[in-house]
């Protein structure tokens, strides 16, 4: 891909938290680009500041130093970002369909125009027929799927995902990975995905960025050159496992 396709570039990003015991450096200079329609994963040990990084990109936290440059001709970071959190964070008092439509209300778009899209998205995440249920009638996996539909409703260019399947059991997680692959290939979004599961990162991504422990620095970047569409059997191939081992070693070294 050419230089023009870069959607988001992060340059020398640094984050320092001020705590009672002094300063805590969460992110120490991280630099990388995310290209249009690329699936990029960030892996790193627990507490390495991956979530902080994502929150800065989403505008939920202030950065201390560095730059986040977006191509404004391609997208508007105020309106074209979708965020999938670790928890589903559905509003209990809203039916599934109204939860999906929440971003539309907040962005003050015409809700009527998006009802059909919401129904399509619910069908895409496998929740057709559940639109009039309340969140507490759904299982954990279903709730997280609603939150994915919600992140897609306003047709954002960039989807930020913060360990979205971290709270799910292994089997559901596997299923959700396959679903996410399908959704991503259908919707052609750019995804920045945070996880600490190396296999998950390799399986999903075009590129895996490895961060060190706090203060996090980029210690590796792997282009995952595996054919798409990827199925579950990919995980048993030597190519897949080589990537997993390479990433693992990079994490081990430091």
């Amino acid at each position, binding site marked *: 891909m050419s230089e023009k396709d870069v959607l988001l570039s992060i340059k020398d990003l640094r984050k320092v938290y001020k705590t009672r015991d002094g300063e805590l450096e969460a992110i120490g200079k991280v630099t990388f680009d995310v290209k249009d329609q690329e699936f990029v994963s960030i892996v790193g040990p627990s507490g390495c500041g991956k979530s902080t990084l994502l929150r800065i990109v*989403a505008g939920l936290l202030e950065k201390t130093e560095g730059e986040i440059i977006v191509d404004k001709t391609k997208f508007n970071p105020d309106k074209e970002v979708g965020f999938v*959190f670790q928890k589903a964070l559905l*509003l209990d008092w809203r039916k599934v369909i109204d939860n999906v439509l929440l971003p539309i209300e907040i*962005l003050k778009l015409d809700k009527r125009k998006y009802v059909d899209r919401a129904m399509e998205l619910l069908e895409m995440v496998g929740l057709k027929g559940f639109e009039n249920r309340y969140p507490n009638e759904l299982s954990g996996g279903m709730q997280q799927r609603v939150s994915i539909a919600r992140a897609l409703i306003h047709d954002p260019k960039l989807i930020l995902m913060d360990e979205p399947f971290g709270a799910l059991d292994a089997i559901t997680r596997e299923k959700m990975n396959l679903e996410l692959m399908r959704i991503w290939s259908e919707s052609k979004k750019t995804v920045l995905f945070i996880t600490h599961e190396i296999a998950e990162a390799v399986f999903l991504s075009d590129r895996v960025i490895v961060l060190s422990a706090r203060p996090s620095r980029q210690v590796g970047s792997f282009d995952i050159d595996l054919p798409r569409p990827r199925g579950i059997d990919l995980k048993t191939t030597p190519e897949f496992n080589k990537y997993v081992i390479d990433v693992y070693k990079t994490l081990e070294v430091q």
Partner: protein
Amino acid sequence: MEEIKEGRLMATKKIKEAKTNPVVAFIDKYQTAFSLILFFLTWEVLCRIFKVNEAFLCTPSSALSHLFFKQPDAAYHWGINITATLKEFVLGFTITAILGVFISVCLIWSKTLQKMVMPIFVFFQSMPNIAIIPILLIWIGYGLKTNIIIAFIASFFPMVVNTMAGLNSVDDDLLDLVRYLNASKLQVFLKVRLPMALPYIYSSLKICTSLSVMGVIVGELYASDKGLGYVIANAQKYMDTPPMFASLIVMSMLAWGMYLLVTILERVTMPWRYVKQKSED
């Protein structure tokens, strides 16, 4: 393993049997009514067995008959007295509920206002409410307005404290959810904070029911010419216990009725709290 399983089967069978037993099922269904009837029956029977002096403690039946049969004394006109208390109670409760929620919202909205107003609230709340009554009587005189104000003073503070706790109870992650979309303060409030606080608001309304009745009655006991509190104060002079107990029963019914109304409103406005069958993936 098998044995345990059988044991469990037996246990569930027994539960099922218990539930299908018509007598048990009937008692189970009307448990509240049964408890109350049992309580009043015991009271009645004990009074009769020990021949308790009516000037000291009347039987529930004489209290109730006092309530339902026309009395010669005009001071015991139940229609007028119950209506008076009911009116004060409903108005006091409604005013407290509306103002309580409104003021909580204002205080949550502006932290500066909260810092300024809270000490004044605490000052008033720490003062025994009843002690304000004589001053209110000088200012306003006895009657409807004074009693409503007393009910308000008695229940307003708990109402505000609870509602504010509810409005503050929002999960930070939920706020992030709307903040990343650049939601305005008003949107955050209407779409997240307020619905989140509903359960708290209802629980404070429930507390408010009994406190409002108490406030109104205290006012009537102190100075009034009608109402259930007046009936009690008046009957006390003649050691006439049946109207006193009748009044107490009616007061309880009023507060209870309002409580039920709040519960019904709660169920209607928060349907999501009452659906609980989980679906599987």
